[in-house]
Each structure stands twice: as C-alpha cells, then as structure tokens.
C-alpha cells in the first residue's frame, strides 16, 4: 500500500441553476479514484455551496496513482428522478508524486461538462502521502520528472543525457464501440476523456520505467500525441529524452516557499562529481549496455524485435571510421569513435531536445526525415501494439541510416507526427543529423585532455556549421567553402536544421519566418489504391516544399533555416504540405547567391523583356529584404578565403517529372545545396506561378518580426509583456473544377491572411516579435482546410534593439570564450541558467539599478493595484521555455490535458466560430486553473498538440477535441528577485509565486 491520496471538497461557486422552480441548485460531489467513490452531503438550495467535507482517503498502489486521474463529479440532487450531472473535473495527481514539484494541489477548478462547457467552479484540496517502496521490480516510476521543454530546464543542470525513450499504448476508441449507439453523447465523450487520461498516465509510467532502467531521473522534451484512428482504435504515443538532472543551487535558494525543504537544494551539489577529469582514462565498460538489456517484467515488443536485426542493415562503423577531415583529422576520428561507441549502445541515438548545453553539439549535418504511408486495420489485441510499434521502428531505422549517411551518429531536434484520413495514415519523423560531444552522454568515459583539445580546436560560433561528413566522399553533391568565420574548416552553402539556433552561433542581422505551402490534388480512392497514390505523390511534395523553402530563403538573402518543421496532411482528395522555419544569415556560411530566371524560348523579344522584368523584381526584393533584416555581412575578398568561385553555369532544371521512382525523400533538400546562383527556368505556367508566389509573400508590417524558434536571432532585449494566442481558421473551397494552382493560391492566401490578421490584432504591442509560431494544417472534410496557429507575441525595447550586430557578435564571442574558461574549470557546470543572459542582458542591467532601496518602493507600488480587487491570480502561458525578464524558480510538473466539447445547438452558441472560440477560451481557463492550483504562475513550453474540429451544420451539431500540454512553473520577475534578495531575512517564508502578498 504505497500511497494514500487525500481529497477535500471545500466549496463551489457560480453553479448553474438546476432547479427552474427555485432558481437554485441542490449540489453534492462525488469523488472517484480507481474504483472507490466518496460522496459529500447535499448542500441544499445554493449556487455557492459550502461543503467543507472531511478528508476523503484513498489507499492505492503508486502504479494507480500514476495511471488514474482523480475524478470529481458535481451533481444536482433530485429526490424523484435521477440526479443530474453538472460537470466534472479531472485532476492529474502526477505532480504530487515527485518531491521537488508541488506538495499540494489546492484551488478553484472550472467544472466542465462536454455539452455545456464550464459551469461554475469548485474548490478542491488534494494531497498524497507516499510510502517508500523498496521493491525493485515495481511497475511504477514515481519520481521521474517529466518536462515538455525541449532544452535542459532552467534551474536544473544535466549530468548525463541518456537518450531516446519512446512508448505507445493502444486501445479501442469508445466513440466507435457498439455501446456508443445507445449511450448519450455526454457519456461517450466522458468515456473518451477518461480513457485518454488513463492511457496517458499509463504511457508516462511506462516511459518513466524505461528512464529508471537507463538510470536517469527525468524526461526532457516529452512529447505525447494521440492518433485517432477511428474504427481501428486509439493510439497514444510519446517520445522524449532521458536525462539525469541535478537541481541547481542557484540564487533561487532563498526563494522556495516554507513548505519545500531547503535541504535538497543544499545537498545536491555534493552528489555530483566535481571534477570528471580525474576519472581514469580509457574506455571503461559502459554500464548502460547491460541495464538496457534486461527490461524487468514486460518485454516491449520493439526492443526485442529491432535491436539486432535492424542494426545490421547499416554498418556499425558507418562513415565514422572512414572520415578524416584535413585539419583535426585524427583527433576528429578519435572523438567520433568514442562518441560512436557511446551512442551505438543506444538503439536510436535520437534526442528530442532542440537546444543544448554549450559544447554538446559539435557538428550539424542537416535535416533528415522519413515518411511512410500505412493502411490502418483494427487493433486486435491492445496489449500487443506490435504493428504500430513496428511501423515506428521502421521509420526510426530509416532516420538513423540517413544520419549515418551524413556522417553523423546522432539525431537531434527529433520529432514524430501522423496524419490520418479514413484508413490511410502518414507517419512522419524528422530531425537533424548531428555529431555530439560524448562528454554528456556518459559519465567518466572521456579523457579530460581530449576534452580540452576539443575546446581549443572548436572556434566559437561556427563549429556546428562545419561539415561532419567526408569531403571526398560526400553523401550528396554539395558546394563547400571554407568557413567564413574561422577559415579552417569546410562549411556547406546552406544549412537546414530542426533545432533552435545555438546560443553561441554568430548571426548577422535578424531572422524571419519562412514558410513553404503546397497543395496537391489526389483522386479519391480506397484502401491500397489510395495508399499507393499518396506514396507516389509524397516525393514530389517533399521536393517542391524544399524548392520553395530554398527559393524563399535566397529571396530573403539568408543562408540557414532553423526549427524546420514540414507537415504533410492527407485529405480525401488532396495532400497539403506546410513547412515552417526560421531563416537566418549565419556568419560562418557563404553569402547566398541570387535567383536567376531563365526563359525557355529565348528568341521571343517580348518574352525576354518579361523575363528581365521579373528578374529585376526578384533582385529588388532581395535587396529590400537585406535591408529589412539588416543583413550586411562584412566584405571578404574571395581570394583570402580561397573558396572556389561559384560558376554561374550551374543550373538546376526543376522538372516536375523528376525521380519518379524515388522513395528516398530525405535528402532532397540538400540536393540543391550545390548551386550558388539558383536558376529558375520558366518553362511552363506552373513555374511562372511559382515565381509569382515567391513575390506575393508580404513582409510583416514595420515593428513586427516573426520566427518559429524559441528566440529571434538579432533581438535580445525582450520586455516582460507577452501574449500567447491560438488562432484557428477554416475555409471552404469551392468544389468547382479545382486545380492545383487554385488550391495553392487558396492555401497561400489563407496563411498570409491569417498572419496579416495576427499582425493587425497585436499592433498595440509593436515593436514586437511573434515567437514560436506554430502552424498546423488539417483537412477535416472534403472541401475544408483548417489552419491552427499558436504563438507568443513578445514586446521588445526598440531603443536597445538598435545595438549593432557587431556588438552582438562581440558579445557572443566574448561569452563563448568565458564559457570555455568556465568549462575548463568546472566541466560539469552545465547549468542551463548560464545561458539566458544571452536573450536579455539589458533587462538585467536595469534590475541592478532597481536593487537600490528605491527599487523596493517601486515594487510595492507596482504590486498593489494588481491584487487590489481580483481574487484570480494571473497565469502566463507561453510556448517558449522561458519567460522574458523573469527567472523560473521551480518546475511543478507537466500539464497534459485532453478535452472534448460537443454541441447540439450550434446556431444558438454563435455558430462554429462562437463554439470554438468559447471552447478554446475554456481550455485556456482550465490549464490556468490547474497551474494555479499547483501553486504555479505560468505554463512554459505550452503546445496545442491537437485541435480536431468536426461540424454538421445541417444537424446543428459540432464536436471538437483539444489536447494541450506544457510545464507548470513558478517564476519570479527579475526585478522582484533583486528586491527580495535585499530584504531576504524578512521575505524568507514568503511564497514566491504570489507577488501580491508583498503589499503593505
């Protein structure tokens, strides 16, 4: 009996009127966990009942604690007929299961009903008493921390980054069970919500077990997704990166609330080995190898099936042993071999992280991706999800071999997704092939001297751009030059990646959001024929998306893409491709050549004129963009670098009928890499269309920037004003003679208009940057296209933004060098907290000033009005892993919520827009309420993973499913931090999260 769950129902407020006669409600509450149910007394005739119940106690296994949600149902008592349900609250108690997170969940939760939405609120207190469990063969994994954040969470440091963990569970979808024909929509929705909640709990527990096997204590970059496969079932799958994290003994030590014991903070620094350099050199036998092989009780199908067979497909030595760069050749090889040995114990050397501790990322090869089209069939035995497992194993294997081909032994920024239409499913995986520093992958296997040499050899700010593959034996034709930064190593002319821009990268100018959009019509077909048709179309889509990206990148005068995410969605009669990335100009890479247009019929005079007109327009646009994004790289004469001068004759014919038989869609992007001057040949109307569409993308209005990465390159002075938002648009295509061109135009307009609307709506925040812009596209029905955007708008300080790029570069160089020094002294101090100075150093400078006694007064004054008359604390939400101008002092656990909302009175609720608007607002509210109840004041790394909307206007019905996740945190404003530190003795016992309490 390893756990006791205690629940107290305090009160309700704003309940709906359930008794028309009295205009009041006789409410009571059922508290259910597992199979045990408790009830409160009925509180008669009130819309604001005060139950003040006893503590309901559930004695349960910790396995159940992890899997089951606490279910609270509010009902209206009826003497004569059945009690009416008012609504439910599901509380995930996982955050209470590890010591550093929340200790109590207490607060007002919206009472949610899948038909009526939020109906009042209920005040609940939840606690858990955990007993120590010494059973080694346990099924639970309490204590493993989960983070959605795709970097090492602030206030932790990574001791070891173990690697990839994945799991999936399947079940029948209650919506498709026979019983659904006779039960109410409400019952069906609730069954679904409950099942998904259970499945995600189970999934998390299983992932946790794998982490414990790997001797980790946390999962970072945890991404959990649902596949609603309809008739064939429901799949919940998750991937993440197992790590061993240590809590930092940072200045935050004085901040924790009274209830969190301060001893854990003090002790931890002694746990780690202060100096790994003293470790005995030589390849010590890695322990992980063994732990991996015995998975305790259940055998996970994938592990057993793929570990031996698939690995043999690709030679284990791969490119690694054969490669030798000219300069650091032998050294590089040595490094590679060691890393390789560290990584090859792993089945999949994948990392879901997109940002890394300094020195972790050595080289980046490029984007690797793989897709496969599958036909769904009914999952016969939910306990053996072998088919789905095998599908993903196949794709991961492909990714792994692609990475090998690029001379890389690891994949970073890795993610997986699906698109389902009827019985066809496209599985996609993508990431960035990379060479990693083995130092973080294992403890004690690396020699100190090697490390030091590595640091010396790697020039700051450009190392990651240097090619990891062998120059003489390139996996694809690419155009290489010497690095423009260090002049020593070779770099490609463009670089595509799925990760965030590394902190120490030297960037010239600002970045911008670059999107490629594409539609392709497809004949309606059934089963096999459909799948074949889709498979045939995929390579072309991928190819064209890459062409578009490349063209747009060049049009912006930039040479690298970060955060690349290509989404291919399948509908009944079309495929959509949407690629988003953030373009930047990397100082290490060569200046991109322009775009040249070539006509096909050079004899025609007027045609020639037209062509030259177009050419002029393109050149003008490039020049304008360079100005707009402040791209003015220092002039370097080519001779000094000695790079081959680009030959203008190199041209690519972009024929539509290229490589028909190719399944290999991975490296198509890079195949363009060889052209310095990019030539577009206008040989048909299609190509004409392409050129036009290139020019139709309107830049954001002045004062606005946008990117889909965490931070905007070139802007580093964020203010604390942030606004997270979700915008959804659905358009109906006129079904009459749709052509690919018309479709493309519609889709393009949809996205462009959506962006324009966002710029307009957020105009009061100028100067402002839309960060982490995340577009998702889906095709819910025949003629419908749905685009969902989530992003955060952050205001920055215009004056400080005028800092020249030069100082920025200097700063980053300087910073990088100090980092190196630090690393030499304390090689394991990988505190990610040493990173943030980069995004907002000016803010810090300001706070120092405020630390004077005067600042204290300011603080009081500012906090007074905000808490004067509102009882609801503000909870910030952001898709970023940080909060500008603030310091995250505590992670309270992950938020992972799934909601269904249905209506049978669509018109009355304001049509589809009214319905979805209200639902999304409610979802935000429920997320905020849960965070507040955990004692937090923000959600970071927030993501809306799914927003499935279905409507039937004729029946006046609509249904929507939303899945969101993020990390609940406590943050303290940097300005307040200073104040608190000056009056530390007094403020010692003060909860850090409620700024309002400091009022006098």
């Amino acid at each position, binding site marked *: 009996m390893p756990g006791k769950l205690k629940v107290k129902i305090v009160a309700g*407020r*704003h309940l709906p009127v359930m008794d028309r006669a009295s205009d009041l409600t006789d409410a009571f509450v059922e508290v259910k966990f597992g199979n045990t149910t408790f009830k409160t007394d009925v509180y008669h005739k009130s819309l604001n009942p005060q139950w003040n119940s006893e503590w309901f106690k559930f004695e349960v296994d910790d396995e159940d604690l992890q899997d089951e949600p606490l279910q609270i149902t509010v009902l209206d008592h009826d003497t004569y007929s059945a009690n009416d349900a008012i609504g439910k609250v599901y509380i995930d108690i996982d955050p209470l299961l590890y010591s550093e997170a929340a200790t109590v969940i207490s607060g*007002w939760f*919206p009472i949610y009903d899948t038909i009526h939405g*939020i109906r009042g*609120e209920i005040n609940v207190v939840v606690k858990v008493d955990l007993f120590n469990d010494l059973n080694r063969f346990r099924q639970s994994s309490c204590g493993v921390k989960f983070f959605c954040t795709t970097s090492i969470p602030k206030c932790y440091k990574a001791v070891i980054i173990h690697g990839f963990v994945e799991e999936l569970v399947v079940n029948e979808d209650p919506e498709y069970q026979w019983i659904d024909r006779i039960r109410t929509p409400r019952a069906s929705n609730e069954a679904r919500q409950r099942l998904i909640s259970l499945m995600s709990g189970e999934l998390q527990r299983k992932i946790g077990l794998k982490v414990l096997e790997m001797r980790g204590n946390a999962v970072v970059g945890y991404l959990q997704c649902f596949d609603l496969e309809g008739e064939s079932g429901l799949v919940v799958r998750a991937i993440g990166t197992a790590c061993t994290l240590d809590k930092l003994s940072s200045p935050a030590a004085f901040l924790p609330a009274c209830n969190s014991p301060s001893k854990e903070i003090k002790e931890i620094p002694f746990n780690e080995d202060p100096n790994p350099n003293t470790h005995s050199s030589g390849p010590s036998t890695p322990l992980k190898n063994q732990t991996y092989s015995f998975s305790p009780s259940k055998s996970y199908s994938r592990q057993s099936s793929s570990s031996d067979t698939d690995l043999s497909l690709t030679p284990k030595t791969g490119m690694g042993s054969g490669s030798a760069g000219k300069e650091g050749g032998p050294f590089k090889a040595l490094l590679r071999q060691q890393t390789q040995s560290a990584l090859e114990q792993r089945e999949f050397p994948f990392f879901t992280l997109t940002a890394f501790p300094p020195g972790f990322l050595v080289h980046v090869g490029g984007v690797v991706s793989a897709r496969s089209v599958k036909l769904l069939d009914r999952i016969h035995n939910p306990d053996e999800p072998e088919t789905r497992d095998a599908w993903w194993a196949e794709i991961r294997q492909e990714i792994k071999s692609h990475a090998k081909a690029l001379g890389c032994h690891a994949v970073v920024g890795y993610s997986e997704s699906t698109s389902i239409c009827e019985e066809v499913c496209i599985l996609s995986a993508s990431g960035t092939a990379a060479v990693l520093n083995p130092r973080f992958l294992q403890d004690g296997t690396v020699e100190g001297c090697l490390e030091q040499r590595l640091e010396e050899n790697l020039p700051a700010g450009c190392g990651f751009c240097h090619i990891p593959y062998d120059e003489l034996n390139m996996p694809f034709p690419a155009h290489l030059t010497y690095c423009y930064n260090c002049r020593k190593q070779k770099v490609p002319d463009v670089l595509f990646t799925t990760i965030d821009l590394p902190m120490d990268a030297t960037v010239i100018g600002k970045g911008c959001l670059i999107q490629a959009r594409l539609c392709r019509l497809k004949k309606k077909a059934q089963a096999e024929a459909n799948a074949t048709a889709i498979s045939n179309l995929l390579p072309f889509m991928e190819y064209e998306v890459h062409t578009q990206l490349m063209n747009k990148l060049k049009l912006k005068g930039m040479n690298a893409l970060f955060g690349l995410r290509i989404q291919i969605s399948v509908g009944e009669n079309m495929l959509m491709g949407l690629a988003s990335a953030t373009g930047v100009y990397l100082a290490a890479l060569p200046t991109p050549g322009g775009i040249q247009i070539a006509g096909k019929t050079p004899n025609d005079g007027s045609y020639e004129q037209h062509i030259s007109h177009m050419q002029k327009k393109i050149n003008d646009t490039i020049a304008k963009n360079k100005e707009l994004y402040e791209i003015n790289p220092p002039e370097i004469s080519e001779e000094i670098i000695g790079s081959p001068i680009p030959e203008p004759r190199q041209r690519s014919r972009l024929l539509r009928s290229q490589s028909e038989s190719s399944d290999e869609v991975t490296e198509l992007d890079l195949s363009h890499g060889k052209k310095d001057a990019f030539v577009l040949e206008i040989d048909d109307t299609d190509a004409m269309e392409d050129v036009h569409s290139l020019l139709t993308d309107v830049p954001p*209005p002045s004062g606005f920037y946008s990117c889909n990465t965490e931070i905007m390159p070139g802007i580093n002075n964020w203010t604390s004003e942030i*606004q*997270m*938002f*979700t*915008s*959804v*648009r*659905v*358009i*109906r*295509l*006129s079904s009459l003679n749709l052509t690919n061109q018309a479709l493309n135009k*519609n889709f393009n*307009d*949809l996205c462009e*208009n959506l962006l*324009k*609307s*966002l*710029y*307009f*709506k957020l*105009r009061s925040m100028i100067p402002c940057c839309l960060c982490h812009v995340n577009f998702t596209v889906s095709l819910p029905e025949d003629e*419908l296209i*749905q685009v969902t955007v989530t992003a955060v708008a952050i205001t920055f300080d215009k004056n400080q933004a005028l800092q020249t790029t030069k100082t920025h570069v200097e700063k980053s160089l300087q910073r990088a060098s100090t980092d190196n020094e630090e690393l030499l002294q304390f090689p394991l101090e990988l505190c990610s907290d040493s990173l943030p100075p980069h995004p907002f150093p000016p803010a810090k400078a300001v706070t120092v000033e405020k630390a004077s006694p005067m600042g204290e007064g300011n603080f009081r004054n500012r906090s007074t*009005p*905000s808490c*004067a*008359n*509102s*009882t*609801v604390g*503000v*909870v*910030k*939400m952001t898709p970023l892993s940080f909060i500008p101008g603030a310091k995250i002092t505590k992670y309270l656990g992950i938020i992972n919520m799934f909601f269904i909302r249905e209506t049978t009175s669509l018109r009355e609720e*304001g049509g*589809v*827009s*009214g319905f*979805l*608007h*209200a639902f*999304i*607002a*409610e979802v*935000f*509210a429920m997320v*905020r*309420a849960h965070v507040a109840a955990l004692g937090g004041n923000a959600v970071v790394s927030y993501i809306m993973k799914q927003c499935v*909307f279905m*409507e039937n206007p004729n029946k006046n019905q609509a249904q929507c499913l939303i899945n969101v996740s993020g990390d609940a945190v406590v943050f303290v404003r940097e300005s307040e931090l200073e104040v608190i530190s000056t009056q530390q003795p007094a403020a010692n016992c003060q909860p850090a999260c409620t700024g309002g309490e400091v009022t006098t």
Partner: protein
Amino acid sequence: MASELDIFVGNTTLIDEDVYRLWLDGYSVSDAVALRVRSGILEQTGATAAVLQSDTMDHYRTFQMLERLLHAPPKLLHQLIFQIPPSRQALLIERYYTFDEAFVREVLGKKLSKGTKKDLDDISTKTGITLKSCRRQFDNFKRVFKVVEEMRGSLVDNIQQHFLLSDRLARDYAAIVFFANNRFETGKKKLQYLSFGDFAFCAELMIQNWTLGAVGEAPTEPDSQVDDMDMDLDKEFLQDLKELKVLVADKDLLDLHKSLVCTALRGKLGVFSEMEANFKNLSRGLVNVAAKLTHNKDVRDLFVDLVEKFLEPCRSDHWPLSDVRLFLNQYSASVHSLDGFRYQALWDRYMGTLRGCLLRLYHD
C-alpha cells in the same frame, strides 16, 4: 473561398476600446467595420478590409461572451474563463454601464417596466441612439433597480458593491433608481431645458435629506419597516409638511415673513421691487408644493410645480442667479424669526434641500 470559421483567442483577452465602444453603441458588425474604415485605420496599419472584418467579428464575439458576466460585475472578477487585467475589467464594467444623456432624459422617472421597454423604438428614433444600445441602457437601469430595490443601507454603496462602478457612475445610478422609484415627471416640455445632471443633483440632495435613511436612525423594529431606507421618501416627513401651510394661510405670518425678508434684502437685490411684488406668490408656491407632497401624484409633479410656481416667475422677471440665492437664503432664514411658527426643524429639512435644488435648476 469563404471563411467558415475564423477565431483568435489570447491567453490575456484582447480588448479593443474603439471596437468596444462601437459594440456598446449597438452597431452591427458591418456598420462597425464601415465606421472603422472611415476612421482611417486601414491607412494607418496597412490592413485590408477583410482583416478588419475578421478582427471586428472576433471582438464582437468576445464582448457577447463577456456580456453575461457584465450583468453581474463581481462575476467578471472571479470568473476564470477570460484572463483580463483588473484595470481592463474596470474599464469594461464602467463603459458597459455608462449611458447616453439623451437616452436617460427620456426614461428618467419612468417606470422601468415592459411598457416603457416597448417605447424604446420611439426613443431610438428620437435620439438617434441605436435600439440595441437603448435596450442595453434600459436593461442596465432595470437590473440595477431590481438588485438594490430590496436592499437596506446606502443606495450608492449598494450599487457600488454590486456593480463595481466608479463613485460618479454609482451616484448617477442612485439618482436613476431614485427617480424611477418615485416616478418623478421629467419629460414635460417645461422641464426639457433641464439636464440629467440637474436632476441627479436634486436626487442626491433628496436622498440625503428626505428619505428614511436620511434620518440617520434605523427603525426601532426592523420588520415593521418595509420601506427602503434610501429609495422611498420619508412618509412621515411628507405628512408633516402639511403643517408648513400655516406660513401662507396665516396672513399675519405671511406679512411678517415678507417684511423680514424685504428688510434684510433692501439694497442688496437688483430685482428688489419685483421680489417685493411677487413675494406672496412665490412663498405660496413653495409652501403649497410642500403641503401637497402627501399625494403620490403631486410627488411626481414636484419638478413641474417647482418650475411653474417658482423658477418661471423668477426667470420672467430676469432675476440673476445671485439674487435668487440671496432671496432663498433670506427666505429660509427669516422663518426662524417668526415667533408663532413651531416647525423650524421641519422647515429646515424641507427648505434646505429645496433651496439647493432650486438654485441648481435655475438656469436657461
């Protein structure tokens, strides 16, 4: 390519003050878009009409969802669905309950019933305020009335507590509720020159002095007292006012009063002769108004009577306001020197308020 669905939801609810005003003013989405276009916003921002349409729709939807909460403002503060900074919440509430001068003059003193609501069409045509806006304002009046009707204690405090309005606006609502409850006639042609501010000023004085709450002592037996403290005039006081009649009925008293006033004001008043000639008429008017207040109908006509019996005669003789003030001060004070008059306290309670009202109402 019609947009089937188009929404924007922020973690902090976006409130555009200009659009809020248009919504409150009852414009349809298309009218609001047209008005925004005319304001030159497209040129300023480089947006398109489609963007403006979508933005306006979004805001209107938000306001519609907020409206339910605005009906009970404390709910807006405690709800969890919309995260709105407190200053914005205050703005939303204040603007929602703000009313148009033209509209309030039409319904002031009328019964806030379905019958009046039916007349909103006419009011809308007459004032040029959209019917939707008229309805909102009318419903606000009615809602505030219903909530505070049965409550004890200060009217202004009650309104402020339950509707979280600013002090100024709460006072205005107190006046509206007070007028509606006592059904004072304000619509007659003679009264058209008076502003809402004039009436609100009078209402405040009357609430302070003429109601039960004004006496300052709670009724001895709480249950026996069914009248509302601040909304109903003190019946006993009105009954007593009959006693003042002696001031004009007793000829000696009237003459003495006149001579006291005339002696004091001789040489100080520009319109002395007119005052002297008119004294008895004016005094009769003021005292008779008091004596009649026992009848509900006459209570309703209070302002009509004051205008007819006092303000119009003064105005026709072109009394300057300073002279009216001097006269009324002297007129009230002189009564204290009338030995035969026993109702000094009653007189002060009556004339103190009335003097304030008359001075406020005396203008063109």
